[in-house]
């Protein structure tokens, strides 16, 4: 019966192609806009690493000014990043399965081909654990080992785009890359990797793509490079004299992540952090009350309010737009259906129940919805491309399977909203009245 209903619905749509095209276009437009903004919202609000998001923790400690809180509006919060010396201090722990402090630097890359000009590139300075901790996929080679952190050894990991740009793609493991005034050996080439949102460093933009180059953290001393991200300090920055003094200062600029797989590990690590802070208090630091925080990935993203209010607002507006599109179709569909009352009368006489007539017309509306939805998804891809260009974020927003399913789901809902009342009206008509009129 369902197949017969679809066939009958197709016949009905073919009867008036212009009107049918109008119906489909209205749904397509609504689905295009709403799916595009749903995708933007989804990218911001999704779980970027579902396999272990509840085992990865962002570490915060309150080393801020004893006289005033880090954020006056929310005095209970510790600083969002940490000092170099505190990162060094807690990296001594052997409790976490993996751990890494990190920051983003801007360094000069010298391409191997002489004709290519040097360029500045965002480089993530991190520890060896960064790669296994965040399950970073590799095309060739792998990350460096913990021994390379200590040296530090001149090794780098590059992403596929950088590999294409510098070496023309292929297995570039072992090739030499000059960064600033030093030669680095390529240890690994990443496979495409785009956690959405980019959870591990929300301060430089959660919608940004990951960096193109990764380097052992301790080259920070060798290059004497400061962060290209956020840096805040509550002491007098002018009194910081020299790079070593900067590293020893109260400036917060490092993100710290740990992987704690078990509850025992978590409890032990909390104890470790508390002990570390108490130790620091004895040294005259950490003048504020003990306030260490461990937030898992989703907790951290929520805390950071990664989903921009604009994205939520646009999503609501776009869904309302789809609703308006669907509501506008009610009148058109009602007119279309009522013009077919004599045929419905015949079908009722031949054995179609009210329910069958109702379902028949709902199927027709849903067919319009699905065709509109498919067209709308195509339009949505174009809208997303436009958004990507406007935000210059390298294709962060794109339709994946869940978003395609959501788009089809929205089109079905729109078809239902548009069709419920007209279908109900047509199924309630008394068949006898229209049989004489045909």
């Amino acid at each position: 019966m369902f197949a017969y209903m679809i066939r009958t619905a197709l016949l009905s749509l073919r009867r008036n192609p212009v009107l049918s095209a109008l119906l489909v276009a209205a749904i397509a437009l609504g689905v295009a806009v709403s799916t595009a903004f749903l995708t933007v919202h989804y990218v911001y609000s999704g779980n970027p690493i579902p396999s272990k998001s509840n085992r990865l923790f962002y570490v915060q400690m309150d080393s801020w000014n004893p006289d005033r809180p880090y954020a006056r509006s929310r005095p209970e919060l510790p600083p969002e990043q940490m000092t170099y010396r505190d990162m060094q201090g807690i990296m001594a722990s052997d409790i976490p399965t993996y751990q890494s402090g990190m920051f983003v630097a801007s360094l000069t890359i010298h391409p191997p081909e002489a004709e290519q000009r040097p360029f500045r590139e965002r480089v993530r300075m991190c520890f060896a654990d960064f790669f296994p901790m965040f399950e970073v996929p590799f095309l060739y080679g792998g990350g460096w080992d913990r021994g390379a952190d200590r040296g530090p050894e001149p090794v780098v990991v590059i992403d596929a785009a950088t590999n294409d740009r510098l070496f023309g793609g292929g297995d570039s493991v072992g090739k030499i890359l000059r960064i600033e005034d030093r030669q680095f050996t390529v240890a690994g080439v990443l496979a495409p990797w785009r956690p959405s949102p980019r959870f591990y460093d929300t301060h430089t933009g959660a919608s940004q793509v990951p960096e193109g180059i990764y380097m052992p953290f301790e080259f920070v001393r060798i290059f004497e490079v400061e962060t290209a991200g956020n840096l805040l300090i509550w002491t007098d920055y002018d009194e910081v004299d020299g790079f070593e003094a900067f590293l020893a200062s109260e400036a917060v600029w490092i993100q710290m992540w740990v992987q704690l797989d078990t509850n025992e590990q978590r409890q032990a690590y909390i104890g470790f952090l508390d002990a570390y802070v108490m130790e620091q208090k004895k040294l005259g630091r950490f003048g504020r009350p003990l306030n260490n925080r461990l937030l898992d990935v989703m907790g951290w993203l929520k805390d950071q309010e990664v989903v921009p209010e604009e994205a939520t607002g646009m999503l609501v507006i776009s869904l309302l737009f789809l609703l308006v599109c669907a509501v506008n179709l009610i009148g058109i569909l009602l007119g279309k259906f009522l013009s077919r009352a004599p045929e419905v009368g015949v079908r009722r006489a031949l054995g179609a129940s009210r329910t069958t007539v109702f379902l028949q017309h709902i199927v027709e509306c849903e067919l319009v919805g699905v065709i509109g939805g498919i067209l709308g998804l195509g339009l949505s891809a174009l809208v997303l491309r436009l958004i990507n260009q406007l935000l210059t974020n390298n294709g962060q927003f794109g339709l994946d399977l869940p978003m395609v399913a959501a788009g089809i789901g929205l089109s079905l809902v729109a078809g239902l909203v548009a069709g419920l009342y007209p279908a109900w009206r047509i199924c309630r008509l008394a068949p006898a009245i229209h049989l004489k009129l045909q």
Partner: protein
Amino acid sequence: MIEMDGIRKIYRTQHVETHALTDFTVTIDDGEFVSVMGPSGSGKTTLLNIAGLLDTFEHGRYLLDGEDVSRLSDRQMSTFRNQKIGFIFQSYNLIPDLNVFDNVDVPLRYRGMGGSDRRAAINKALEVVGLSARTKHYPAQLSGGQQQRVAVARALVGSPSLILADEPTGNLDSAMANDVMDLLETINGMDTTVVMVTHEHELAARAQRRLHLLDGRLIDLEADDRPTPLVARPDGSSSARV
């Protein structure tokens, strides 16, 4: 087949009440061929609509094939129509987007029959009306007589026990009208009850019995062309029985 007792049907608008049938009582036996005559507005079509479960009534009792249909749900009435009643209309009422085969297929689709059974039944019905060679034609490609024959095939494809025909020859010339009447007689010969509304005395005379309606009342009854006196009731209503 049909037992109507004291049926009353009133069409109401804001200011006017029209009594389409007034305390109408009739019995039609299985296998009968009955014609219904009367001037326009006398209630012929209303009678057919009520008999075909396409319309409701205010008062009275209606037994169709022994079942009190006034208490049936919409779904049950639809099933009843689909399985026991075939309709033939004056303006054929074929669905213009469907070809001959698919038009005849409609009642079987609502019956949920399998593909091969449907094909066999449709081909048999089209053979009866002599349109086996026109299965792919659309209504617009057929003459009026052919369209009405398709409608007859559609009415009989489900092997109903009752055929209700509302002026089936009203839009046809006399030759085509006779063809359709021949078909109705053939169907009646297959033990199917036929109730036909018509304005034409000559065609009505071909039925076994004639019912005459005026102002929603039965005013006369003839069986086998023998006039039968009207049975008057004390309350002013009328009835007729074989």
